[in-house]
């Protein structure tokens, strides 16, 4: 890679007051034709382009991004990474991603600040306890690290948790995946953008797709705000806007787009060194390296593309946070935002061909796509390059909604949906 980042480049650039760093990726105008075009320049889209170029030797490709790199859901999620899903198909998919995360900074020569600080999922009633214990067993059968903690062990692992049994939803125990953790979300997009660009991928920002040109059963190109681009393969990774792109091709998807909110507090000294999630009370919290508490709320229960969300959802989440962590009662919240997530009926993603030749969709990640970014890109690249799914994403095809072979993770995976 040209302009490799290292201790030597850091020292060299220090002599010029860090004013001569080269741009991490270029800003090209679109060519007339590409071998493949990826729609959506978030983490998943950029990773797809990166692996298409790296593993499948497709260099004449472009990533089209409506806004700017890292400005969509990639920069709006709560950065949690884990793979403790219940079903075999999901465990395979998410653990594939987790294994790539473990070496990603080295591979990309870009510090994505991956931190395996552990993710703890709390149980608040007897059914939670049974479900979460069952899940730890399922995880271990799939080679995924998971342990059950009783209430005392939960308190030892995260001392600020209130384990009083007199609260509305007392802590009865929890599961812990130690290999899980967080990463700096926008660095992931930047690292993949830089890596893809270095292999010749055109990253075209401020370029919105306005239409998909079809000729019978196959695609011929895209109408964009920067003109028509000819291509035989289109990979759509547009998250909340997947249905909008699908409608352009005359296709309907089993998705509903909803606002998902998150918020951060004022920065404070280190107080919580792990990620704690609670499905039942719908609150999860971690602390960023800047010291802010990063808090995730639930989705609004109606379709909306507004990137806002309702106040009562945030209020409900903060009530739960305060009951579990009374120590935060006087913290001030700094910022709140929403992202639009595309939710599948079975809460599992779609990485799939469609019945239109050359049109591929990677969507339906719903409320938890960030953790899968590298694996999703790798498997989607495989699907596009070979016109066939990899065995790890074969179960995540569009046809499952016809066959009924759903990957029903809804409420089954300690997922905060």
């Amino acid at each position, binding site marked *: 890679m040209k302009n490799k980042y290292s201790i030597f480049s850091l020292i060299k650039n220090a002599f010029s007051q860090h004013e001569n760093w080269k741009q991490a990726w270029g800003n090209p105008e679109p060519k007339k034709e590409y071998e493949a075009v990826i729609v959506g320049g978030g983490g998943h889209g950029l990773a797809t382009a990166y692996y298409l170029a790296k593993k499948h030797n497709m260099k004449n490709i472009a990533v089209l991004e409506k806004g700017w790199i890292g400005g969509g859901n990639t920069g709006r999620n709560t950065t949690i990474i884990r793979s403790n899903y219940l079903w075999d198909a999901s465990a395979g998919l998410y653990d594939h991603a987790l294994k790539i995360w473990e070496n990603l900074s080295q591979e990309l020569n870009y510090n994505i600040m991956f931190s395996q600080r552990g993710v703890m999922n709390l149980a608040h009633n007897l059914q939670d306890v049974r479900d979460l214990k069952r899940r730890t067993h399922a995880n271990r059968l799939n080679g995924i690290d998971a342990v059950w903690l009783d209430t005392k062990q939960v308190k030892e692992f995260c001392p600020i948790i209130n384990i009083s049994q007199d609260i509305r939803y007392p802590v009865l125990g929890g599961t812990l995946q130690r290999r899980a953790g967080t990463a700096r979300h926008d660095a992931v997009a930047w690292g993949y953008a830089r890596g893809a660009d270095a292999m010749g991928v055109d990253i075209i920002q401020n370029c919105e797709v306005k239409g998909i040109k079809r000729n019978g059963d196959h695609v011929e190109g895209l109408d964009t705000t920067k003109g028509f681009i000819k291509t035989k393969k289109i990979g759509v990774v547009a998250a909340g806007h997947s*249905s909008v792109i699908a409608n352009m091709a005359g296709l309907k998807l089993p*998705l509903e787009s909803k606002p998902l909110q998150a918020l951060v507090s004022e920065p404070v000294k280190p107080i919580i060194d792990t990620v704690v999630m609670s499905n039942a009370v719908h609150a999860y919290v971690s602390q960023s390296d800047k010291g802010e508490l990063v808090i995730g709320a639930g989705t609004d229960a109606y*379709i909306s593309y507004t990137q806002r969300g309702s106040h009562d959802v945030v209020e409900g989440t903060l009530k739960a946070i305060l009951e579990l962590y009374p120590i935060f009662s006087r913290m001030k919240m700094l910022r709140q935002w929403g992202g639009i997530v595309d939710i599948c*009926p079975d809460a599992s993603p779609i990485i799939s061909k469609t019945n239109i030749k050359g049109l591929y969709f990677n969507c339906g990640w719903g409320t938890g796509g960030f953790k899968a970014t590298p694996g999703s890109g790798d498997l989607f690249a495989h699907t596009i390059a070979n016109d066939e799914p990899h065995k790890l994403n074969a179960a995540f095809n569009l046809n499952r909604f*016809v066959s009924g072979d759903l990957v029903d993770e809804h409420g089954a995976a300690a997922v905060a949906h």
Partner: protein
Amino acid sequence: MFVINCPYCGERDQSEFSCGGEAHIVRPKQPTELSDDEWAEYLFMRKNIKGVQFERWNHAHGCRKWFNMVRDTSNDKIHAVYKMGEKPPVI
């Protein structure tokens, strides 16, 4: 967050309501004769429109009655509210 004009109770906060998704999806008259593709279309496939959408809502923490609503999903502006069984307005 917005205010919804329930056709039975008047203006109430949106948090009192729950959304039932896309409206006017008709249950198949002859379920036994449906192909798998047609079932998938009825059960799962949705328009998920960015823009003016017809949808069902329920006043869950109020009168508990269902009704229809026309709302722009790109800005949450409500164009019309009408009762179940009434003809959808032209927007």
